[in-house]
């Protein structure tokens, strides 16, 4: 049985369903991200895992024991909050020791675990400080250390980096991941930031409107999403209706391009910027309407027929000026979405 098994977990309120029945298996040591827009049910999901919201149905097993009816203090789950939630009246050391005292861990073991967490989170110089004397990033590291000392069966993260500035967020993202590998724990990370989800996760669970839309590795979900929602939510894409047959598709502006499916008939394609290479060509199908210089690449906004697309080119070439006619050359077979029926609006 999986380390964490969730079966048919549901939460409904009098007038609305916050989470439709959901199943999820998480293996020991996995780093899973719940990704979705706000209100998609990911917070409800997390609150039920933690034990502060009661499920309307379903079951949760963690490390072989059924936990869905247990109060939070009985579950061996630690949580890192978006607000850090450090106790303002306790020093860093006091914060780290809080949970160990509550769980009556022997003194020697407390010291060993705290020393370990302080070392791997680089908190050495700060142990005697009060939380208000620390920067946001330091506070977040204390929050993380406080969770790690508990040696939990499951570590939950509730958008832990969203209160930090962009640069720090990227640094902490890596630190967090390194820590996860070193500690070897099982983690569930909730975020609405697709970059975070893609760069950190072993698997991403994409959620929308109280349902799991799709689950998969970052690569699979990005390259070969099944649903429109996933394709749009992860990275940039243009969804285009096309007519498929024999591994090719006729695009709305008349061009034929290879696709990654043997489907025939009307399909919806997800076209990523890196799928199309714009080449200056006076007879090309598209017109450049503008570009975005990103440093590592240039994104071109191209109007082909009445479809607005994004195509990319390496930044080492001089940008193609707006108004130029370009031919669109496909670099790889275009991806066909599963839920192709209907318009790709």
């Amino acid at each position: 049985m999986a380390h964490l098994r969730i079966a048919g977990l549901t939460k409904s309120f009098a007038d609305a369903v916050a989470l439709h029945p959901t199943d999820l298996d998480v293996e020991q040591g996995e780093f899973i991200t719940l990704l979705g827009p706000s209100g998609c049910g990911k917070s409800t999901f997390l609150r039920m895992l933690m034990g502060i919201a009661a499920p309307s149905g379903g079951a949760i097993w963690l490390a072989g024991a059924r936990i869905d009816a247990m109060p939070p203090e009985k579950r061996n789950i630690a949580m890192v909050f978006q607000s850090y939630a450090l106790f303002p009246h306790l020093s860093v050391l006091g914060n780290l020791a809080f949970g160990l005292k509550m769980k009556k861990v022997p003194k020697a073991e407390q010291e060993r675990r705290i020393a370990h967490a302080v070392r791997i989170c680089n908190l050495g110089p700060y142990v005697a400080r009060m939380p208000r004397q620390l920067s946001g990033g330091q506070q977040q590291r204390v929050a993380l250390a406080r969770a790690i000392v508990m040696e939990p069966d499951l570590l939950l993260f509730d958008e832990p980096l969203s209160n930090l500035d962009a640069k720090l967020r990227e640094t902490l993202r890596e630190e967090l991941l390194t820590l996860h590998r070193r500690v070897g724990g099982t983690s569930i990370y909730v975020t609405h930031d697709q970059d975070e989800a893609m760069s950190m996760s072993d698997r991403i669970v994409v959620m929308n409107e109280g349902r799991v839309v799709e689950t998969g590795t970052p690569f699979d979900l990005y390259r070969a999403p099944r649903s429109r929602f996933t394709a749009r939510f992860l990275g940039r894409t243009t969804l285009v209706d096309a007519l498929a047959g024999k591994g090719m598709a006729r695009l709305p502006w008349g061009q034929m391009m290879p696709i990654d499916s043997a489907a025939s008939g009307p399909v919806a394609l997800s076209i990523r910027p890196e799928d199309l290479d714009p080449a200056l060509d006076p007879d090309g199908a598209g017109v450049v309407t503008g570009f975005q210089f990103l440093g590592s690449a240039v994104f071109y906004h191209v109007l082909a027929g009445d479809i607005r697309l994004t195509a990319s080119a390496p930044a080492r070439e001089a940008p193609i000026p707006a108004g130029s006619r370009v031919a669109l050359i496909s670099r790889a077979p275009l991806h066909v979405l599963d839920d192709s029926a209907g318009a790709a609006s």
Partner: protein
Amino acid sequence: MARSSRIPFSTDDSLWLAIGLYSALVLVIGVPLAMIVLWSFADGWFPPALIPTAFTLEHWRQIVEDRGLAEATLRSILIATTVTALSGVIALPTAWAMARFPFRMKRAVEMFVLAPLIVPGLVVAVGVGQLFLSLRLAYTVPGVILVQLIGTLPLMIRLLSASLGTIPEDLLLAARALGASPLRAMLAVVLPLSVPTLVAGGLLTFVESFQEFDMSFIVGAPLVETLPVRLFFYLDGSGIRFTSAAVVSLILLAPVLIVFVLAGRIMRDDVMASGMGKL
């Protein structure tokens, strides 16, 4: 005419502000206090003399030699301490409920809790007096403590519910996730964070209880005399005796000053710093 656009009350004004505020302080507190001290030692003070024409320790001797006074002082300290402790213990859970949980008729309950602030103590005491008689609480120390609680609780609840409302929900959830039961989360997180408010509320409660007259008089006297009740006997109805009144005022003022100075020292160093951080 052009209006001056400078910002009022900048550091340029500090000298004038200081002078103004200190003069006001002297006028409102210093002068009356000085008058009281002078009166307590005066042996004849008639206009147009600016200070008494003769001094005596007679008024102090009279009151200090009253054996009932020491007893009343001890009793008052005991009552004020108990009232303060009980106010904290009762107000904390009440304030927690009012600050944290939405419930039906919340507005009505709030009004009910605060009502004693508006109703004069005399009215409360007369109403309660009858009830206490039948409960055998009249003329007892517990009776006086209970009736004083009616007056002190609203303030304590009000102060606490305001400060408890600012404790973030996440702190409690974090405590729970770290293995604290709801009760232990209260004791280990909410209580320490409420200490500054409890100290502030406790001070006000202590002072209010120590100086309270109306309700203590009606419920307690003559069998249970608190210090104010005892002292007010010196101001009998035959006429205002400024000299005795001055001594009484000074005696009533002393413990209050001591408590405030002590609390000020403890709070600044320790409690304020730990509780009032980035919540």
